[in-house]
């Protein structure tokens, strides 16, 4: 494993590793681990939101589960969902760009 130093300018001390160090035997493994952790974060974010919404809806008697199942987004809602999906994909899979080429 070869590892570059950072362009930051500490005076002496321990050299700082440059961005994206590889810790595992294969950079693909590093990316895979990052994606798994990111997915766990995304799952938690969604679960936290869903629990919040369900509790609010239930407390206020505003909505039934059948309403949620039957929901069809209009054009602007669909566009907003697509933008959210892009953000989600970027969060999880941005790691793919960080796998270095073999020298």
């Amino acid at each position: 494993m070869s590892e570059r130093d950072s362009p930051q300018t500490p005076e002496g001390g321990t050299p700082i590793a440059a961005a994206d160090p590889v810790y595992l035997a294969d950079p693909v493994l590093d990316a895979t681990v990052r994606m798994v952790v990111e997915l766990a974060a995304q799952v938690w974010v969604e679960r936290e939101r869903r629990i919040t919404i369900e509790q609010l809806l239930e407390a206020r008697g505003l909505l039934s589960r059948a309403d949620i199942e039957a929901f069809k987004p209009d054009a602007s809602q669909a566009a907003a969902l697509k933008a959210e999906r892009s953000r989600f994909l970027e969060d999880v899979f941005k790691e793919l760009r960080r796998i270095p080429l073999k020298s």
Partner: protein
Amino acid sequence: MSAQREVVPETMPTLASRTDAAYLDFVEGFREYLLGAGANFEARLNAALESAGVQDLEDIRRYVHAQPLGQLRDRLSRTQQEMKWHALRRSFDLQRKELAAELAAWDARGPGRLVLDPAFVPPPYVNVHFHLQPGGYYKDELSGFLYHYGTKVFFRGGNDRDELHGKLVSLVPPPSDGRVARVLDMACSVGQSTTAFKKRYPAAEVTGIDYSAPMLRVAHRRAAMLGEDVTFAQTLIERTGFPDAHFDITFAFIVFHELPLRIIHETVREAARVTRKGGLFAVFDFTSTADKSPFQRYHRWFDARHNGEPYSQDFCDCDLRSILESNGFTVAGTPLDERSGGAGYMTHWFATRV
């Protein structure tokens, strides 16, 4: 009213969305899982190192790096830190204009005073992205907000209202003659110990200094929100510009491990100059290498190289007590690790100017 006075208001910047807050909540929990009994990395790796009898740091590193468990531990440690900054920066970027305007609105408001030096040039040694914070401590106008929220995750939500700073300040004994008219908080960052000192000594003139203008602006906003009349000034801790023997208490919280050895010596010399005879120089910082387990020594190296703490190994290797003593201090020797750090990574030096 008097009951409300006890409640410290929330001064943490608000995130752009509930999604961001939930994401950072995950990172906070994940970090705790990695550090503690959840993943149980430290206990297992340390037991393995001790039973293998590995002593030399080079050998410790080789041993940990040869273990898939050690490799994965490093990967995950780095990842949770990167995730934190990624989420925080994105969340603040979304409200950058509003946050900048918020800072500008507080700059000239009191109580308290903000003294920035437009001609200030940061020395090269501070060009480090400490803890991987994007832009380090001073290159982003929102560096102070990033830092404050970053430490929220670091302290696992236990310091949102400066609880830790309040506790540490309460442990600092007053000088033996009891006179506390002026207090200096060196490298005050967002000013959490500065305001804690003002609460403890309401009649004293309390000053926080730092090189980072973005940190000082957040410090001033926080102090003004808390109603504390303190001064924040942009200056180097190794060259403060204050008169000789000006302060009764000089304070430095977890800054020494972020200084090159040369600056550690200069800062102690400067503290000796500005602290009056009989006054106290109180330092909280990392425990020394001699007090660390093999795994803790490994972690100090990892933190230095992979978490933007390049000076921390040299600090832990140095003898701060003898540096203090050779600059005109006597150092009280009561170990307070448990009380001062709570996690056993921190200790203190309470040095009296003779």
